[in-house]
């Protein structure tokens, strides 16, 4: 156990681990000590001088980022001296700043703007023509733009490339007020996590090319999500825009940013995952399709009833294929539909995409967010790999849930077996290779428009959320599955297709999900019960 110490911050007593720095300790009592160079997940540089505080018994103005808490420490963060120093630091920072906020992408989330309004508000003593000029709109890497004039030399980006990716592309070159952030000649900022530098850059010096000039941040809404890009399941924030016209919602996703989770991705995410928000916007299907004609839901269901009702009496006539993109809840309900409506044992799980690059940090070779969860929930019904082709043999219909059996990723045997099935009913949020010869295409929603859980590579259950609303015919897969059940004569109540309730069913049934519910999982997820650990400790399995 670490020792704890008692400190007093602006009159509030709090117990913290010994040596925790004063910025972090102050956070715990709701006191925000302004800072630029300090970042909780990087080494301490102590260069911006914004976080000075007064500490009784210490001379001068120590910096909170490099001062560890000791027992009995009394910290003041709002004395006149402290406030004067903050204003002076801001005046220094703005001395040579170009103040081009109107054309700066960081505006609205720029810490210079925010702290200026909170702590400075003085007029400038330096004329515009006296400012030092540096490079603007430099392509410092394929995914990041650099404006050297806006840089405040906090060195966060330098430390990120030195300490996290260990690629060391960025350096602060030159001295004095000619200090300039840049790469060495011939070097690009091109590592797999390069856009993180834009996240941690407190100003508009490093910006995310993909997001540049797309939206003003103050129009955006922010919701917790999980990156669907690989089995790591980085915790992210989705920034999206809700355009509302009359009753119509037209949510658009703009970017993903990492959300701090020390058990998964710390404060980072990969550049590939950044682009996963495109799954919300691109190639979407807005209306059901029956035999290559767009139809209404009623039309689609009426037609489907004709196909499915006779098959409901023929045990095992209908097969089910899902992908590792599905949520645990979807697999659970899918399995239930196949079993209860069609008497089918087994559910096939296939990949959406081939394994890709991996590293020893976040990026996993498995480019699906929920392989582990799908496999666990499918349980004894799981059919994978070469067995899938056999499983399809002789079926009269197949329901495909968020999967693409025709994709080039699949084995030829699977593609052939799939082609041979007469009725193909596809539930998918976006166009794929299987849409074109399907009998029925039922549009479902993307990860950011539905509730559910995924299990990442560590066996951690994490929640995705319904953040975006779009006024199209697309529906969450859980609803569509319930409607298919109704066609087959089953009546599932509202509860039975609500994600949280479905999860409760899973938790009741499946030992490794035991004890979990959406509240326990919370914002940061929760580990599955580790059966092997329980067995070792002599618990009953």
């Amino acid at each position: 156990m670490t020792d704890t110490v008692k400190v007093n911050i602006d009159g509030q007593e709090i117990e913290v681990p010994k040596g925790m720095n004063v910025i972090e300790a102050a956070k715990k009592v709701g006191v925000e000590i302004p800072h630029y160079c300090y970042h909780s997940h990087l080494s301490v540089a102590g260069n911006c001088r914004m976080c000075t505080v007064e500490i009784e018994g210490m001379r001068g103005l120590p910096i909170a980022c490099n001062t560890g808490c000791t027992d009995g420490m009394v910290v003041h963060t709002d004395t006149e001296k402290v406030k004067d120093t903050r204003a002076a630091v801001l005046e220094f920072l703005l001395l040579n700043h170009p103040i081009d906020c109107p054309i700066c992408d960081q505006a609205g989330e720029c810490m210079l703007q925010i702290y200026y309004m909170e702590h400075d508000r003085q007029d400038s003593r330096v004329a515009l023509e006296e400012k030092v000029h540096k490079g603007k709109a430099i392509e410092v890497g394929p995914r990041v733009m650099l404006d050297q004039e806006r840089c405040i030399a906090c060195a966060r980006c330098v430390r990120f490339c030195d300490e996290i990716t260990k690629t060391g592309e960025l350096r602060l070159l030159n001295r004095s007020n000619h200090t300039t952030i840049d790469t060495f000649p011939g070097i690009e900022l091109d590592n797999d996590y390069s856009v993180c530098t834009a996240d941690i850059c407190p100003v508009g010096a490093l910006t995310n090319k993909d997001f540049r000039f797309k939206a003003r941040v103050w129009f955006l809404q922010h919701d917790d999500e999980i990156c669907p890009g690989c089995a790591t399941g980085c915790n992210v924030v989705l920034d999206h825009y809700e355009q509302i016209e009359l009753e119509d919602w037209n949510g658009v996703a703009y970017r993903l940013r990492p959300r701090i989770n020390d058990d998964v991705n710390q404060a980072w995410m990969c550049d590939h995952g950044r682009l996963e928000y495109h799954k919300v916007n691109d190639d979407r299907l807005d209306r059901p399709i029956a035999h290559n004609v767009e139809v209404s839901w009623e039309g689609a269901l009426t037609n489907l009833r004709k196909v499915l009702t006779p098959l409901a009496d023929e045990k095992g006539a209908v097969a089910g294929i899902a992908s590792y993109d599905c949520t645990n809840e979807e697999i659970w309900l899918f399995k239930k539909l196949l079993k209860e409506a069609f008497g089918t044992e087994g559910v096939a799980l296939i990949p959406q995409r081939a394994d890709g690059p991996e590293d020893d940090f976040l990026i996993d070779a498995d480019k699906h967010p929920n392989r582990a969860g799908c496999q666990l929930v499918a349980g004894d019904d799981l059919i994978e790999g070469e067995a899938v082709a056999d499983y399809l043999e002789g079926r009269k219909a197949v329901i495909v849930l968020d999967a693409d059996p025709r994709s080039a990723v699949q084995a030829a045997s699977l593609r052939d077996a799939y082609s041979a099935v007469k009725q193909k009913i596809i539930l998918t949020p976006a166009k794929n290779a299987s849409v074109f010869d399907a009998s029925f295409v039922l549009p479902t929603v993307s990860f950011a428009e539905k509730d559910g859980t995924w299990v990442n590579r560590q066996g951690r259950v994490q929640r995705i959320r319904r953040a975006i609303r779009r006024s199209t015919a697309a529906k969450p897969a859980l609803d569509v599955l319930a409607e298919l059940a109704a066609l087959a004569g089953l009546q599932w109540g509202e509860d039975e297709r609500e994600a949280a309730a479905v999860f409760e069913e899973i938790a009741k049934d499946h030992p490794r999900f035991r004890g979990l519910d959406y509240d326990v999982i919370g914002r940061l997820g929760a580990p599955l019960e580790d059966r092997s650990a329980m067995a070792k400790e002599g618990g009953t399995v």
Partner: protein
Amino acid sequence: MDWSEAVTRVLFEHRDEKDVHTFEGWKAVGGFSALEKALKMKPEEVVEEVKAAGLRGRGGAGFPTGVKWGFIPKNTDKPIYLCVNADESEPGTCKDRVLMEDLPFMCLEGAIIAAYAIKASMAFWYIRGEFDLPERRMRAAIETLREKGLIGKNILGSGWDLDFVIHRGAGAYICGEETGLISSLEGDKGQPKIKPPFPAIKGAFGCPTIVNNVESLAAVPWIMRNGASAYAKLGTEKSNGTKLFSVSGQVNRPGVYEVEMGYPLRDLLENECGGMKRGRALKAVIPGGSSMPVLPAEVALQTNLDYESVQAAGSMLGSGGMIVIDDSQSMPELLKILGRFYSHESCGQCTPCREGTPWGSRVLDRVADGAARPDDLETLERIARFLSGTTICLLADSLAMPIRSFFQHFREEFEALVPTEAGEKSGG
């Protein structure tokens, strides 16, 4: 004390001896006997000896050398390094250069003893890039000692190994600051690092490191030969030994002089330096290198040269780079030059220093050049206020202290250059 007696010489004891800059020359005056003696002692005993001598760091801060050596963690499993700070670049300071040119083997002997005392296996000689002759002398001296077996494996049969590497600076003053030196040595941009951790705990390449000034180390052989108490007898109660002063400016005989601590500043100017040039009147003295507060003549002439006296007078002994200013010189002009130096040399990482020193310099330029704005002196005072104590290293203070002390003692000279609100310069 009667200073007319011959001054005891420690560092310059043998400076005038023939060929003392060679191995044989140094050996002829008893060179390396201190090393032989030290290697027969335990490292801890050497540390104690230097502590007892009361030697204080001559790089500027005056921190007790033996105490600093004692900060190296016991039983560390990391290599320990010694960095010799030969970056000497403070305007007005040129004492280490003389030591390295004239007494390279004495400097090296001191460094080897220091390395032994802190159990270092590797020592770096970080030398200012512009120092051509000193660098050649030190490089040759290191080569010679390697040939003679005084650097390398199993030195004098002690079982202790030491290697030496010379590292040339690339022209940045800030690489004289000990952690800036370490960054530069590591191959990074020369920029100071936040403390704590202190170098003795986590220094060069993340390992325990002692950084010492050349002059500090150069005193060690004498201490080992003559004993700690002989050294401690020299100087004043708290400032032991002798100190080099490199005197520049308006004196008849500028140069590097060794005097006992506590020697009157007036005597140094009148005796060693031969009085003021062209018989002009003394106006001010910067006693310890250009970053230290200036003292007006009347205060300076009452001051003795030891850490405590100079501090009591309102300045600091610093590196002993003494700049003598006469009544023909313009203080705003001098401060303008200091402003340019420190703004140019700011490594640029701390906000107040990166932005404040060039801003201050720009304002000082226009004040000295007759283009001052009405509120320029307040602006300078504000800049100086926020340069003090707000940065990673003391370079920012190094401009703040001159600004403040120049204003304190010579404000009228500045006011005369600043227009009043009506647009007139008060001095006409």
